[in-house]
């Protein structure tokens, strides 16, 4: 199945998306297309709906209306498609009493990853946690848990990556590590959507910026054409 999804174009298409919580629209007829290989930074105020949008794309939340397709399929109903999605959310999604290694093993089994011991060893090494892999997750710092989350999201080599405020709570060293990792992940055939409240540091890494405002995508354009949208430029300076 992984070969089937990986041969599809890693494109995210959202059309006329509506999501309401308690009758209050958070996303209001939102449309957005993120092309194969794009690294799009999703910006917007707190409560603008960035998390909701990412959770819908990850198949964790069902929209009230609209069409969402990832690699041409619906991420909620087509569960094999979820193999091509990697999601890093606000919470690390780990079991506190299990070690870093055991947690990754659990996720690797769920994703039916091949050669699990080797894959996990490589993933843990890639995020620089080899010396901590036998420690229970509850003993790891926020930055380390974030790195481990990254390993979890990448363990099945997804072609679509969704990040929700991944810099929150990270110190400078961990943030620089994340910058480097994101730079390395931005490769042809991999599409990245990253929600950030303060996106300034990402503008040198990302290819596009999408501005979520009033439940719709207000502007969506390449980073090198930000000059065409002075309103967005001012917003980015305000939140920097």
């Amino acid at each position, binding site marked *: *199945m992984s070969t089937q999804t990986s041969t599809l174009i890693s494109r995210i298409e959202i059309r006329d998306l509506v999501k309401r919580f308690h009758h209050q629209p958070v996303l209001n007829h939102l449309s957005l297309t993120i092309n194969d290989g794009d690294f799009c930074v999703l910006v917007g105020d707190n409560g603008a709906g960035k998390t909701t949008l990412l*959770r819908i794309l*990850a*198949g*964790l*939340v*069902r929209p009230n209306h609209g069409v969402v397709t990832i690699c041409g399929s619906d991420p909620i109903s087509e*569960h*094999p*498609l*979820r*193999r091509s*999605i990697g*999601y890093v*959310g*606000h*919470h*690390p*999604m*780990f*079991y*506190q*009493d*299990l070690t870093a290694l*055991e947690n990754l093993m*659990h*996720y690797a*089994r*769920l*994703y*039916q990853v091949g050669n699990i011991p080797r894959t996990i060893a490589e993933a843990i090494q890639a995020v620089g946690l080899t010396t901590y892999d036998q420690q*229970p997750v509850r003993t790891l710092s926020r930055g380390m848990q974030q790195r481990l989350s990254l390993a*979890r999201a990448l363990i099945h080599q997804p072609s679509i990556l969704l990040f929700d405020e991944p810099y929150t709570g990270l110190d400078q060293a961990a943030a620089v590590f994340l910058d480097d990792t994101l730079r390395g992940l931005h490769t042809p055939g991999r599409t990245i959507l990253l929600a950030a409240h303060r996106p300034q540091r990402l503008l040198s890494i990302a290819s596009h910026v999408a501005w979520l405002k009033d439940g719709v995508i207000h502007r969506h354009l390449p980073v090198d054409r930000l000059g065409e949208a002075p309103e967005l430029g001012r917003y980015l300076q305000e939140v920097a």
Partner: protein
Amino acid sequence: MKPIVRYLAAIWHILRKDIQVEWRGRQGIPVMLVFALTIVFLFNFALQLSPDLQAGLAAGLLWVSLAFASTLGLNRGINLERENNAMDGLLLAPMDRSAIFFGKALGNFCFTGLVGLVLLPVFSLFYPQNMLRLPLVLVMLLGLGAYTSLGTLLSALSIQARTRDILLPVLLYPLALPILIAAVEASRGVLAGQTLSNVSSWIYLLLAGILLFNAAGLIFFETILEE
């Protein structure tokens, strides 16, 4: 790998993870055991009944202990998935989400079954009956199978509720009443020396409960977890 094998493998991986977490944390089974044993001791010393009356009450007390202790285990099982949004990790996995229900229900069943198996010999010490009988073990496992299936489904319902800790017992006890009555009646019959065929109507009710609640889990679990 065939889809059914993948599905069964997913259930096994979730069950295995629950066993692993319990083994590392030891926060579920010991708490359930202490709670259940406390109920057994308390009732034994509080009621001071004659041996005849004690024999009649044994089945009811066994199920009171099991039901209350199981509820603690069910809460623990779902809290485990709520901490750090671990449930999201399961929902993101490329599998039919009903596998999460069956994995969690099996885990709850194994843990409460283990508590029940420890409880039976303890009951034999306090009550003038040998509780370690195969038919009674069978009835207990059937009753717990139905009870934990329903409990797993309802605990998923309470995962997003603010009053989740009280919501589960409030929903579970009334809905589980037919199952608990059938389990008590079947246990009482077995303890009175009847064969399983003599209490077959209660056994069928327990089997129907297992089928019904697992079918409900298969169909509704994903919807219940949706935001």
